[in-house]
Each structure stands twice: as structure tokens, then as C-alpha cells.
């Protein structure tokens, strides 16, 4: 493998890794606080992408992305308030079934509204083309997405670790019953956290539209990797999700360069090795 190929693979891995980290952070928030593996997370990523392209027609690229985040976050809040909340006191399998059923319903809704045909979407004209980095040429849009997502993920980490609301969130993750007894409106925290987690998924979908294009089943492709990131990073650990996301992205990209058929499998091998070496996850506590 020459330097140019290695550089390209690492950069591709970082871009993909940032996406996985974004998905993983959202999923980790929901899983950590509410103890729910949200099987609808993938389709909400897809919905973000589709709302993005419709929003972009009316409001431009940036407006489209904001519309996507707002729409998916609102939907997430509605799902928690109207659906998930009714099932907290019953067997956890019912919440699993609800999220799985929602993923099917939303996928079919995407097909009904936007059609079954794949769609390609261009980045804004200012971000088209490639930049010569010396070792390799790399698309401008991907560089911008990588930088933006890195800042966003860092922002999420700082929010959770340095703010009062973040402290409430961490308290809820650690012991939600105690947090409720201490006077925290834990139900509101649940709703807002679900909205935030799903909003991040929607943002991930919106940002990736020029990179990966759109297909109604695009959420199914990314969901397994989002779960790998959460498991590898440690359940409920945001720093863990970030680190795991980057690791998974880079490993997958390097394997594509070395032996493409093994790229996806390498992610699951990495997860297996990670669980064996550290069952609690890279930065997990429980």
C-alpha cells in the first residue's frame, strides 16, 4: 500500500468514523439513559437524509440540514412521549417491538412519500471538487463534514460533562430512580434525551446525503455499525462511542484498501476482540 492510498484510506476512515461516532453518541444517550436499544435509529438517519433534500429545495443546503435535525428530533420526542413512555412499566421486549415496528412503518413511509428509487444529491457548489493535500487529493465536502462532525461530537461531550443538564443526564444514566427522588423531572429528561439522540441520527443522515446518496433502506445498512460502536465503546459511554466510532471507521476503511470483501466483517471481528479484551467496552463503566 503506497502513501497516497494509505492517506486516502485514513481520511475516508475518519469521515466514516465521525458518522459512526455521531450515530453512536445518539444511540448511547438513548441506551444509557432509557435502557432502550432503539431499532428505529437507522430509519431516523434515513429520514433525516430525505427531509434534508426536500428542505434543501426550499431553504438551501444549510436550511435543509436544520430542517432535517428539527423534524427528526421532534419525531423522536413524539415517539418517546406517545409510545415508549407507555411501555416503561412492562416487559422491555415491548419497547424493542415498538422500535422495530416503527422502523418498518417509517421505511414504508419514506417509500410512499419520496418513492422507492435511489436519489443522488450534490454538495453545495462551494464545496464541490477536491483539495490537493500533497499526499492525496481529497473531496472538499468530506473535509468540511469531518471537521464539523468532530466539533459537534466534542460539543456533545462537553455538554454532557461540563453542564448542569449534562450532570442531570449522567445522574439519570447512573441511577434514574435516585435522580427522580432527588426532584429531577426524569420524564422530561427522557423525552429531551430521546429527541437529542434521534436528532443526531437525523443530522448524520442529512450530512451524508452528498457522500452516500439516498435509498429507502439506507438506515438498515448503517444500524448494525451504530450498535457495534455502542457495544465497543461501552454502553452509555459517550467518550467510548466517539473513540469506538473513529476506530471502526478507520479499520473498515483500511480493510477496504487491503481486502475489500473483508471490510464489513472486520468491524464485527473488532467488536468481538474488544468485548473479549474489555467486556465493559473501551471506556465503559458497566
Amino acid at each position, binding site marked *: 500500500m*503506497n502513501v*497516497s*492510498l494509505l492517506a*486516502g*484510506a485514513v481520511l*475516508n476512515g475518519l*469521515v*466514516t468514523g465521525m458518522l459512526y461516532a455521531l450515530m453512536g453518541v445518539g444511540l448511547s444517550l438513548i441506551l444509557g439513559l432509557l435502557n432502550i436499544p432503539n431499532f428505529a435509529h437507522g430509519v431516523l438517519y434515513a429520514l433525516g437524509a430525505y427531509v434534508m433534500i426536500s428542505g434543501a429545495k426550499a431553504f438551501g443546503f444549510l436550511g435543509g440540514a436544520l430542517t432535517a435535525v428539527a423534524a427528526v428530533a421532534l419525531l423522536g420526542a413524539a415517539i418517546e412521549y406517545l409510545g415508549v413512555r407507555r411501555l416503561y412499566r412492562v416487559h422491555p421486549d415491548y419497547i424493542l417491538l415498538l422500535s422495530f415496528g416503527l422502523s418498518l412503518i417509517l421505511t414504508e413511509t419514506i*417509500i410512499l412519500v419520496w418513492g*422507492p*428509487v*435511489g436519489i*443522488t444529491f*450534490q454538495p453545495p457548489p462551494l464545496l*464541490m*471538487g*477536491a483539495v490537493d493535500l500533497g499526499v*492525496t*487529493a*481529497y*473531496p472538499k*465536502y*468530506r473535509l468540511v463534514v469531518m471537521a464539523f462532525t468532530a466539533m459537534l461530537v466534542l460539543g456533545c461531550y462537553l455538554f454532557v460533562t461540563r453542564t448542569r443538564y449534562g450532570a442531570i443526564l449522567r445522574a439519570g444514566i447512573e441511577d434514574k430512580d435516585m435522580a427522580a427522588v432527588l426532584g429531577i423531572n426524569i420524564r422530561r429528561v427522557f423525552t429531551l434525551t430521546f429527541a437529542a439522540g434521534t436528532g443526531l441520527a437525523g443530522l448524520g443522515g442529512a450530512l451524508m446525503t452528498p*457522500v*452516500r*446518496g439516498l*435509498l*429507502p433502506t*439506507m438506515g438498515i*445498512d448503517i444500524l448494525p455499525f451504530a450498535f457495534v460502536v455502542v457495544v465497543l465503546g461501552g454502553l452509555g459511554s459517550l467518550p467510548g462511542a466517539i473513540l469506538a466510532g473513529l476506530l471502526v471507521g478507520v479499520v473498515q*476503511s483500511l480493510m*477496504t*484498501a487491503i481486502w*475489500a*470483501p473483508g*471490510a464489513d466483517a472486520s468491524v464485527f471481528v473488532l467488536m468481538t476482540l474488544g468485548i473479549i479484551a474489555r467486556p465493559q467496552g473501551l471506556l465503559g463503566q458497566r
Partner: protein
Amino acid sequence: MKSITRREFLATTSVAAGTSLLGAPARTTAQGKEIVMLGIWPFTGAFSDVGPLLDRGMKLAIEEWGNKVIGRPIRYITRDDETKASSATRRMEEAIDSEGVKVVIGPWSSGVALACTEVAKRRKVFFYFSGGTEDIAGKRCHRYAFQWAASPYTAMHVVVDNYMKLNPSHKRWYLFVSDFAFGWSVEKYTREAGARHGIEFVGSDRMPLGTREYSGFVSKAAAAKPDVLCLLNAGQDVIVSIREAHNFGLAPKVTLLNSWGVGTEDFMQLDAKTRENFWVGTNAYYGASTPVAKKMAEMYQARYNAPPGYAPCAAYGMTRLTLRAIEKANSAEPADIVRALENWETQDWPGKVWVNGKTHQTVRDYFLLRCKKPDQMKHQFDFADIVAVNSEPRMPDSINECKELGPV
């Protein structure tokens, strides 16, 4: 509540059964008179963008015939194969059982077709497919199945031979290959044709159909410094890989050559800048100048405000040839259609066609197109020049794996 007696129950059900039988002869007669043709198309799944286009093409042919043939009405039905073998075979069997289907046109995916052909063989229904796998007219051949698309052997030779004639210095090729039956067939013959021109295949990658992330593959291709990036993939994968090649600065300085493409429908998804230095090998282009092709293009454009690409032309061509075979045989029984089609040489879409009686391969022209620069386009759909059209070289019988078609 009064409970029903056994006598009352028997009386009621007998009357109900008798009433339903009154309609049966009429239904049987209607079904016996009409000819049910099934279009098994992908309305969902990886090829969902193509399903509606195939539907258009088949409808166009049937309507051109006045919705009847040999004095019998044609009932055209469709089933969604979901681009999955399991769904396609289940729905094909259901259509044969419940609708009396005798003629099946489709599907689109080669992988799905290899499953459907087994159903056609077992159920003895006429089956016409257009796709890149050589196996339908090769090792999986049988008496009821026909292949409409050009043999990948012929197609890849037309593409490679003519491209190299115009670009003799382009010796370094990198391949993107869809990792299923279609991709394996076209890759095999691309390499064979390339060897005759001294082409060095500097790298290749196989990716599953529906791959969305091409950055890694494009980076690898760029590092190999090819003259040509040969796209042996399908569906939206082609569009995604073209866009990524441009995003990474690989194209247009490196030729993008989509050796088995759909042509027009892909061109419409790309802007003029992205079409620069893009070459396409295809089974169908609306610019074909034969009378049948021109008439079909005019009808399609009048109805849909866009020229037809490979998909609707294929569905139209297969349906039209099948209807003509039914007329020739004066029968819609699958065995009679088969016998009428075998060894038939005629003028149809896209021009002269001959159905090889030993393999059921339709021998017809294959096209190589070169996209025009924006200032060369005479109108919005004037995407490409036809730089070569040929039905030769034909696949030698010695290397064809279809040895025995079997009886009807």
C-alpha cells in the same frame, strides 16, 4: 341463541357451493380465452428505479398490438420481485397458479433471473430475460428460457475492441465489479477481450450490489493510476461511483467506461460536467436508426417526454418478439412459442435479430456510446454519439456451456 342443526348447515353450504359454481364455467372460459402475460419487475429493492421503466416498455408493446394477439385478449399483470430471488420465485409461482400465466418477461437482476428460470423450467412456462449473466443461455439453459440481451462475450468485445481502436494508448484499466452473477460474467469477458489488446488490469474491486460508500474503492483506483476506470457494476452503484470519481478528482482525466450500462436513464441523472469523458456500452440506445427502434422511441417520447433507455427498450423488445412468435405459431402455448422463436431470423428491436436454436441466445447489436460535451449537444437529450454497433463476435459454441436444452 338457536344453534344451527347439521341439516341446516349442509343445506346452506350446498346452496353456497352450487351458486359459486354457476360462475365457474364463465371464469374458466374467460381465462382460457385470454393470454396472461406476467412482467416480473423490481418495484422495490436495489433496482427499484428500473421497475416502472420496464413496466412502461412492456405496456407499450402490448398496447401497440391493440391488447390482443391471435384474436385473443392479452391480460398484462405484474409482480414485484423486490430484487430478491425468494420474493420473485414465490410471486411467479403464485401468478402461474392463480392467474394462469403462461408467459413471463423479466426479471431485471441476473441473480433473481437464475432463480426464476428454474421455476419456468419446472412449470413449463415461456421465460424471456434480458441481463448480463451468460448462464441463462449457458450452463443453466433449458427449452423454455430465452436471453434477449447480447451475450456478455459479444458485448465486452464490442466495447473493448472499439474503445481500444479509438484510444490505443489506454492500456491501464481498473475494474469495479458488482459481486454477483452479472458482474462475474462481464468481468470474465472484459479481461479476455482486454488480453488481446495488451491491457494491463492494474487493479479490481468486487462490491455487493447496493454499495453506497465508494470512497475507499475510488481512492484505491486513483492510487493505481489507471487510464480507464471500467465500471462493471449496476443500478445506482454506477451513479454513486461516477460521482465519487469526480469528487475525488479522478474523473474526467481518467475515462469512466460503463461497459454494460442502461444509457439514457443514467445520463439523465448526471449533469453535463459529470458526463465528460464517460463512455457506455449498452444493449439499447434510443438513437438507433432502424425503423422499429425509431418508432418505439417516438411513441415512448410522446407519452413520457423522455427518450427510452435500455430497460424500457428491453421490455418492449422481449414483449414484441414474444407476441410475434405467438402470431407465427398461431398459439400461445409455451411449447409452441418456443418452437416459433428458435432459429428465427427477423427484423425487430434494435435491428436484425436471430434466436440461436441451440442456446436460446438472441443474437443482436450491442452499442458503444461516447458522451458529448455540452457544446456538442443539439438538444437536451442528445447525450451521446454511437461510436460502434455490432453483433459480432458471436460466442463460439465450443466455449458456451449450454450443451443440451432438453425437450418441451
